[in-house]
Each structure stands twice: as structure tokens, then as C-alpha cells.
């Protein structure tokens, strides 16, 4: 080990000159991630929103509006509850569909596997908004386009949209598991179930976590599905943000909603980075 390191040390050092190529990326991300995040925080805690008549005054009024007023009781908390319930259901059902599908694909021969992979990425080329609109058509045709079914319909449409994002990362980690590892488990006397629960499943955890995050966060913040499927009657977290940005002078409260979303995003992000530092399961 030490020997190897010694041999590699020299060229690596010289290579460092190339490191300068990444500096513009740091600047780029500074202006497009760090700066706007700071503006967002400032806007959440002040009354300034870039409009000409707004004052720069530090206040908690945005927060008390979201959490403390009658708005909280009638709009915010119900929307949060609904968003969490729906995205929880979508994530769980996606997982129940995705894991067996990915597992099954892992053991198919190369050619069939290639075709299934192709079929999995192809729908992403069909416009997402048009797919949502055609789910509305499907529910109309099968007679489920009634307000009583809206929440159910939203769940179905979201599963259809996000299922590939759960299957792909799980499949990519399952694919990397060496056949020899599984054979070794059998040779050591484990049966199929033991091999699955003690070898295959633990080795696929990083893919599962990426999949869960990649499905849960987008469904939590979806607004197009709920708007289209429910004719704008069902309000979710995403709809709250959308309305603030479409309406006039809503940036401050919108920033509060965004900050709440960012907190969940950071939690999910830390989780992903812990199991997958290089982000291999993200693409």
C-alpha cells in the first residue's frame, strides 16, 4: 500500500496544475448556488422582495404568517400533511415495484437486459407535462376523474413519473455486485433467502437510498401533477411555492416555503453523500 502511494505521489503532484481548471466551476457555483441561497435566507427574514416599494426590515412576520396565522391552520398544515402522505405513499409503492424489477433485470441475460434498460429511459423522452395531461385523460376514460379519487389519481400519476428514477439507481448497484460474491454465499451454505438478506440487499442499500431521495423530494414538491389531475383543487407544498412565485409580492413567504424544502433536501443530501460519496448512484 505505502509503496503504491509513493509511486503515485509524483505524477499526482504534477497533475495538480490541472486542478486550476476546476476553479471557474467554484466561482460559477458560488454565484448560482451560494449567493441565491443567502438571498433566500435574507428574504425569509425580512420584508424586502426586490419590488420598488418594499422596505428592508428584519422581521419574523413571514414565519408567523406561515406557522401562526389562520393561514397555517387552513392552508399550510393541511398542504404539508397531504404532501407528506402522498409522497410517502408514492415512495413506498415505487420501491415495492422497483426493487423486484431491478432485481429481476439483474439476473436476465445481457441482451434482454439491454432492451429493458432502453425501455426504461425511453419514456423520459416523452414530454413530462404531456404525460401528466394524458393521465388526466386516462382517468376520464376509466371513470375515475371525480374529486373523490383525486388524491388516489395523483399518487398513480406520480408513481408512473418517478418509477424509473427508483429502478435505475437500484439496478446500477445490483449490477455491480459480482456473481462470485453471490456464489460464495451459496458455497458457504446460505440458501437463497439468506443470500438475499445478508449479501445482496445490504450491498444495494446505497442505490435504495438514492432512489428514495430521488423519488421522495420531487414528489414532495410536485405542483403540476396536483394542479392538472385535481383541476387545481388539491393544494400541496409545491403548489404553495408555485403560487407565491406566480402571484405578485409573494417572494418572502415563498422563501420560507423554499427554506422548509431545503431543510429536507439537505437531510436527504447528507444521507446520499454518506452512502455514495462520488454520486455514482445519482445518474
Amino acid at each position, binding site marked *: 500500500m505505502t509503496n503504491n502511494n509513493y509511486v*503515485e505521489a509524483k*505524477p*499526482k503532484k504534477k*497533475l*495538480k*496544475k*490541472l*486542478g486550476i*481548471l*476546476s476553479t471557474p*466551476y*467554484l466561482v460559477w*457555483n458560488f*454565484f*448560482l*448556488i451560494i449567493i441565491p441561497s443567502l438571498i433566500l435566507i435574507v428574504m425569509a427574514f425580512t420584508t424586502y422582495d426586490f419590488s420598488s416599494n418594499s422596505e428592508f426590515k428584519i422581521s419574523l412576520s413571514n414565519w408567523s404568517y406561515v406557522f401562526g396565522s389562520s393561514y397555517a391552520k387552513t392552508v399550510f398544515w393541511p398542504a404539508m400533511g397531504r404532501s407528506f402522505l402522498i409522497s410517502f405513499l408514492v415512495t413506498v409503492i415505487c420501491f415495492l*415495484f422497483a426493487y*423486484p*424489477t431491478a*432485481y*429481476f433485470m439483474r439476473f436476465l441475460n445481457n441482451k434482454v437486459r*439491454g432492451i429493458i434498460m*432502453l*425501455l*426504461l429511459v*425511453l*419514456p*423520459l*423522452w*416523452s414530454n*413530462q*407535462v*404531456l*404525460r401528466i*395531461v*394524458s393521465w*388526466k*385523460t*386516462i382517468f376520464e376514460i376509466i371513470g375515475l376523474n371525480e374529486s373523490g379519487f383525486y388524491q388516489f389519481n395523483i399518487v398513480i400519476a406520480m408513481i*408512473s413519473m418517478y*418509477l424509473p428514477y427508483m429502478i435505475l439507481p437500484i439496478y446500477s448497484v445490483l449490477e455491480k455486485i459480482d456473481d462470485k460474491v453471490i456464489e460464495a454465499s451459496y458455497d458457504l451454505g446460505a440458501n*437463497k433467502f439468506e443470500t438475499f438478506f445478508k449479501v445482496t440487499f445490504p450491498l444495494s442499500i446505497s442505490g435504495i437510498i438514492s432512489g428514495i431521495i430521488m423519488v421522495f*423530494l*420531487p414528489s414532495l*414538491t410536485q*405542483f*403540476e401533477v396536483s394542479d392538472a389531475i385535481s383541476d387545481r383543487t388539491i393544494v400541496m407544498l409545491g403548489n404553495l411555492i408555485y403560487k407565491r*412565485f406566480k402571484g405578485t409580492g409573494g417572494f418572502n413567504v415563498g422563501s420560507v416555503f*423554499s427554506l422548509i*424544502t*431545503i431543510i429536507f*433536501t439537505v437531510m*436527504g443530501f447528507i444521507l*446520499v*453523500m454518506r452512502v455514495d460519496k*462520488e*454520486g*455514482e448512484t*445519482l*445518474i
Partner: protein
Amino acid sequence: MKTNKAFTTLFTIILILSFTLIYLPVLVIFLMSFTKSYSLTTLGFSSGLTLKWYASLFTKDYSALDILYRYSSNIRTLKNAIFNTFAITLLSTSIATILGTMFSIGINALSKKKRTMMLTLNNMPIVTPDIVTGFLLLLVFVVLETIFGLKRGFPTVLIAHIFFSIPYVVLSVLPRLSQIDPNTYEAARDLGCSRMGALIKAIIPSILTGIISGAMFAFTMSIDDFVITMFVSGTRFHNVSTWIDNGWRRGYIPKTVYAYNVIIFLIAFIIILVNRSIQSKNRKVKL
């Protein structure tokens, strides 16, 4: 043996169900693009079959195609949106691929600590929900508008698309880079290449497959983007996604866009198929 068979059956059923769920809307779009009816609440087979939606993509004379007059201005704006989509996607994919490759070469040469920091920044936009990314970029552009008077539209959408495409290019190129011998660059320099020449002649060819798959990723994300585009595009600029959104909110979507969608789908199918067969041929040659 018996449980084995039961499991295979169960897994096959789940696989079929998964694909049914994913493909049902795609199928509906396909069918609806061939029916005469304007209605979006039925498949419209009772109204008869037609190719007029496809024809309307390639002509300007909508009355000759028997398309209701009130839809013709929508079809015109759709064509505009299609043009925008391709302009944005082609430009942003090319720029993001070049920048992303350059950044990856840089990141690969960094020390472990800096590398982790850069990768954290890189992966953040991928995990962050589009609505938050869109809102953050909107804030940047609002500042730029206040200070420099930069109006939202084509340039802001282009910057946004480059922004969310680069991370995918980096994630595709980096694994390739870490596979190549770190001496390659130095060897090329010793053999008389300039810095630029060493990069282009020695490094780029060995990471080309990563660059191509990164570009494919960037293209796929950009051509279908909706949420981020909607946030940063202002009110006048539309790509196909924001055009459809705008259309259903007003209750008008000419099925021309269904025809467009089917054509794009088929083109993608052919491109991916050709790409795969080239790759498998290459593999055979190497073996």
C-alpha cells in the same frame, strides 16, 4: 424448485405492471395523435383517424387541414416553442459538455479534500428539487435584472439549462478520468505536446465515452425540462413544456403537440438504438 417458479412469476408480473404504469400515458399520447377529435378527455376514435396533426407541424396553411381557426394561433406559438426548445437544448448541451469536461479534468487533479467539496457542490443541484433550484436561479436573475436590467427570456433559460446540465456531465466524465493512468498527461507533455495539446490528444480520447454519455444526459434533461424553465423564463418565452402547461391552464392544447411528441420519441428511440449497436460492435472488436 416450486418457490423458484412462483417467484419468477411474481417478479415477471411486477415487471410488467411497472412498465404498464410507465408506458400507459406514452401509449395514450401515441393513440391520440392519430384521432380527429379536439377533445382531450377521450381517445377520440369515434371521430375517425387522421394525420392532420402531423401535417400541421410542417405546413402553415391550417385551414386546408381543416383545423379550427381558434387553434391556429396556438399551433404557431407551439412552433415557436419547439424552435426555442431545440435552440436551448443544443446550445446548453454543447456548452455544458465542454465546461463539464473541463471542470472534471480539474476536479480529478484536486486533493481528496477539495475534490469532495467540489463533488458536494456538483451533486447538490441533482438532489435539490427543481422547484427550489428554479426559485434560487430566479433570485439570481431578479438581482441581475435589478442591477443590469437583464430581462428574463432566452439568455436566462440558457444559463439555467447549462447550470443543471453540468453536474450530469461531471458525474459521467469523472469515473472515466479516474480510470486513466495519471502519467498520461505528463507523458504527452514530455513528448512535446503543449498543455492544450496534451489535453486534447491524450486525455480527451480516453474519456470520450464518458463525455458522450454525459452529453446524452444533458440533452435528455434539457429537452424535457419544465419547472426550472418556467421559473426563469419570464412571461413571454416558452419551451414545449411550459407551452403545454400554459395551454392546459387556458384549456387549449391542439393535438399538434401530441404528434410532435411521438416524432421526438421515435427519433430518440432510433438514436439510442444506433448508439447501442455501435457500442456493442466496438466491444466485439476489442474482444
